[in-house]
């Protein structure tokens, strides 16, 4: 497995996009931190951009990468290698390069300007989101044979996670505003890793007071040790679930 990962990583590193992504994150976070005189405010600004950019790049790059490696995958499948090994190596290579790019691009500036619990939480969430969306991208890519369809599905998934889901939440809130649905909202937020990440970081920033009554409920749940560990478990499940599904699909795929 190590051998295949090695070739995947060499191939990704040769790709200039990864370098561009790292530089982009670096320039972005450096400029945000130097524009704001208050580092905590800078972190908030960075948070909103990262929650949009990281899933987008992770999802689209991974999907296109899988389609472009079709030849590589085909070559490996006819060799004495387990299909699971090939797929997991692809995942590990993609995930580790996405994580490395995020760490170098956004992690380092955050550590320089705001190396406290909030900053660390943000790095952790960013890393987790990178991996989660690699895993989602692999599922989208294995499900569809057609390249254009697969990339379209990846873009739609990103739209869903970053825009449509929030619209759906708002709709729920307005429709059922007469009912006590705050507790249900905690459960619903688990359905979207981006929202979950946002809530976890915002609570660390201690500005949950601005989120009103719902914020208080969130604080009650996510502020506690069990709530925190449960939400991290959910985030990890967001990695494992799509990945296992995609492995199962890949094992039965005709090449």
């Amino acid at each position: 497995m190590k051998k295949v990962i090695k070739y995947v990583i060499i191939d990704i590193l040769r790709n200039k996009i990864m370098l561009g992504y790292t530089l982009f994150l670096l320039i972005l976070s450096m400029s945000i931190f130097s524009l704001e005189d208050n580092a905590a405010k800078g972190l908030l600004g960075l948070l909103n951009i990262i929650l949009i950019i990281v899933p987008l790049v992770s999802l689209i790059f991974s999907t296109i990468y899988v389609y472009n490696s079709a030849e590589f995958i085909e070559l490996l499948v006819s060799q004495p290698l387990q299909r699971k090994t090939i797929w997991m190596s692809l995942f590990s290579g993609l995930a580790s390069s996405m994580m490395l790019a995020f760490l170098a691009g956004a992690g380092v500036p955050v550590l320089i300007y705001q190396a406290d619990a909030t900053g660390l939480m943000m790095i952790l969430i960013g890393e987790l989101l990178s991996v989660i969306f690699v895993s989602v991208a692999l599922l989208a890519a294995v499900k569809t044979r057609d390249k254009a369809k697969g990339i379209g599905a990846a873009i739609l998934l990103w739209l869903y996670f970053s825009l449509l889901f929030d619209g759906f939440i708002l709709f729920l809130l307005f429709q059922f505003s007469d009912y006590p649905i705050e507790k249900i909202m905690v459960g619903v937020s688990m359905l979207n890793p981006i929202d979950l990440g946002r809530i976890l970081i915002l609570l660390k920033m201690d500005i949950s007071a601005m989120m009103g009554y719902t914020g208080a409920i969130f604080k009650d749940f996510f502020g506690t040790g069990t709530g925190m560990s449960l939400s991290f478990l959910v985030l990890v499940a967001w990695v494992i679930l799509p990945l296992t599904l995609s492995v199962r699909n890949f094992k039965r795929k005709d090449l």
Partner: protein
Amino acid sequence: MIIATNVSKKFGSLQALNNLSVTCTKGECIALIGPNGSGKTTFIKTILGMVVCDSGFITFNGNNINNNWQYRSGIGYMPQIGRYPENMTIGQVLDMMKDIRKTSAILPYDEDLIGSFNLNNLLNKRMRTLSGGTKQKVSAALAFMFNPDVLILDEPTAGLDPVSSEILKEKILLEKSKGKLILISSHILSELDDLVTQVIYMQEGTLCFHKTIEQLQADTGERKLAKAIAQVMQQ
């Protein structure tokens, strides 16, 4: 050595393989013949596990190939259209395959074909810049490199120039004399004449016959494979 039992495969509504049962034994050189779209390549891909069959099963040396992968270390496969990572050079692809298939059991690599195809001079060329014929040469070199017991060649000489296809034929004859099982699918029947010992004829995913070459000659009264098959197809 390779036994396929009632193998069926559907691609959508197309029945690519229909209840195919074949037994291939060691030391034979078997020609897979049939019109375009008769399921030859699909059959080869199911043996390699690249296509998963809907029903039926295939055993390799007595082991079911389903969920098994080690058996592929005994197979050298030359695809019909070799597809390789485009950004890698020939040298990198060869090194990668050696790296992946490296086990202590493999005897020194069989690099005859790399020498006789003059691939050594092209090691720094990227795969996307190669002509179809050169890609075929790389595929052939890779198939023979690890001294496999079984060679599966899918239209090996399509796209090769006359000199190179002669070199490849010599190599196949040499491996045949070592008692390996060789499966060749081809449309150029005149080339198969002095190679094959058995013929599998397929049509629309079903097996029409599996005979030794002597029996085919006796049945049709023709010496040449091309004429014998032509006679079968007209019936």
